């Protein structure tokens, strides 16, 4: 799927397109993520959601939805500020994202409204300190977290 073929969807969701190796990147505002993901998943043969990734960018957290078909990926990309890390869950329309969103919630502290794991843990131990930063954020200190958990 080339950038030209994705242009109508990008225009519809107010997104921008870029090309990377093997990947077409569709960057969208946070409130358009569901529409963009639904749009990609409804393209012929593009139903496969490989996973959802999260990245700490400093002030923001990037959320990447990776769809795959043939020799290409389509990456729907958005950013949420660390000060308000909330996003609507895509799981109402794309059930395959349930565990991937829950993983990002645990590791990067982004709440996905509508995900069945909202407020629950998938990967982290139940005794993970509620006041410690999520472990994959750059400002988290593993040694400090270990001490807070009483592991030293």
């Amino acid at each position, binding site marked *: 799927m080339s950038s030209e073929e994705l242009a109508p969807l990008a225009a519809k969701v107010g997104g921008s397109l870029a090309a990377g190796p093997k990947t077409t990147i569709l960057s969208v505002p946070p409130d358009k993520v569901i529409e963009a993901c639904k749009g990609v998943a409804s393209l012929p043969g593009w139903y496969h959601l490989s*996973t959802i990734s*999260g990245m700490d960018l400093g002030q923001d957290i990037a959320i990447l939805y990776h769809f*795959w078909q043939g*020799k290409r*990926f389509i990456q729907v990309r958005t950013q949420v500020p660390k000060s308000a890390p909330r996003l609507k869950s895509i799981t109402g329309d794309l059930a395959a994202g349930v*565990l991937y969103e829950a993983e990002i919630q645990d590791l990067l502290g982004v709440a996905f409204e509508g995900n069945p794991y909202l407020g*629950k843990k998938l990967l982290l131990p139940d*005794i993970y300190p509620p006041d410690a930063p999520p*472990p994959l954020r750059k400002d988290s200190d593993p040694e400090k977290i270990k001490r807070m958990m009483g592991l030293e």
Partner: protein
Amino acid sequence: MSNPSEKQAEAGAGLMQYSPEGMMPFGPVHPSLKEPEYFKLFLEGEKIVRVEPRIGYVHRGIERAAQERTWVKNIYMFERICGICSFHHSLAYTEGVEALAPFEIPRRAKYLRVVVAELERIHSHLLWLGLLGHWAGFDTLFMWIWKDREHILDLEEAISGNRVNKSYTTLGGVRNDLPDGLADKIRVEMGYIEKRVEYYKRLVQSEETIIVRTKGRGRINQEIARKLCPVGPLLRCTGIPRDIREEDPYAAYGEVPPQVQTSNEGDIGSLLTLRLNEITDSCRMVKEALEKMPAGPFRVNFPRSVPAGEATYHVEAPRGELFYFVKSAGGSVPERVKIRTSTLANILTATEMLKGHTLADVPVVLTGMDPCFGCMDRIAVVDVDKSKEWTVGGEALRKYGIEYYRRK
């Protein structure tokens, strides 16, 4: 719930009770397992109506640790994520990183990667089939198959020096060439495995224990597959012919393509035949790769710093799509590495496979998706009618399943 730690446990998924004294409960964590999971089964009588997965027992923070290690050191850490498909982890990572650098990897290295990857697929599928025999109450099958699997592990050791964590692939190629005379031995062993697999194919289609426990069990269809996005044999058993080796070739798979195996049954029984057919095909591919393997170097020097950029990469591991996302900021360590293992993609589908079945089917159906079986050492059972909860050990559940079908 007055105790704060109890409240905390309830606020979590509430599916397991960690003890503050010992971080991990006994059961899902075992030295022989690689991806323990924990399923909470909701029952109506004997029938499973809902399943909630809870994972993370051996989550080791590897993605975070990767950000503090050099590109090369990460190879050895990533292959320790899984004790069965260790090579596929290092392969997905190295090929992903290589995609960021303007280097052409020697063709011989690409062929050698195919040989080791297919040997790993063979031993992984054999391991699974043996375990399925164990859970179904056919331990002789388990013994036979694991003995045959040793032939493959010996070959892997002869190629790389190690049976499990092979450390064979590296940035820029592979660590060493094929030792002299080994190609002939590999061909002989492939012939042996092919013969054994033909026997196992006849066996699983005629042996009553296997048929009763697997036919029609854990059935899924294409609609579920398109909705929940399972990967690998679990996807192909519904009749969807998707295999990354064929659809998005990496290493030398473009020149040694697989014959994608599918089935239309979508049950555990069909997974048996499908995986056995994949072993036969892998034997063919190993021999073909040895035949076509070009002469020349097997490795080029690779820079310590990787150019800035992002690479999305995936390989067809024995259990299906293994996904790596690699981001470089141009330094000697990665900015971010995201890993999605095949089992994580398959867990939701496994919960669908369990619905409608009885507790006696749980070991075979869960093993059918090829997870790590540690999950079955600690299963919580909830009777929704009586609001009663208790736990069952893995061995007790295995015996219960065998007895259940013996009485039937």
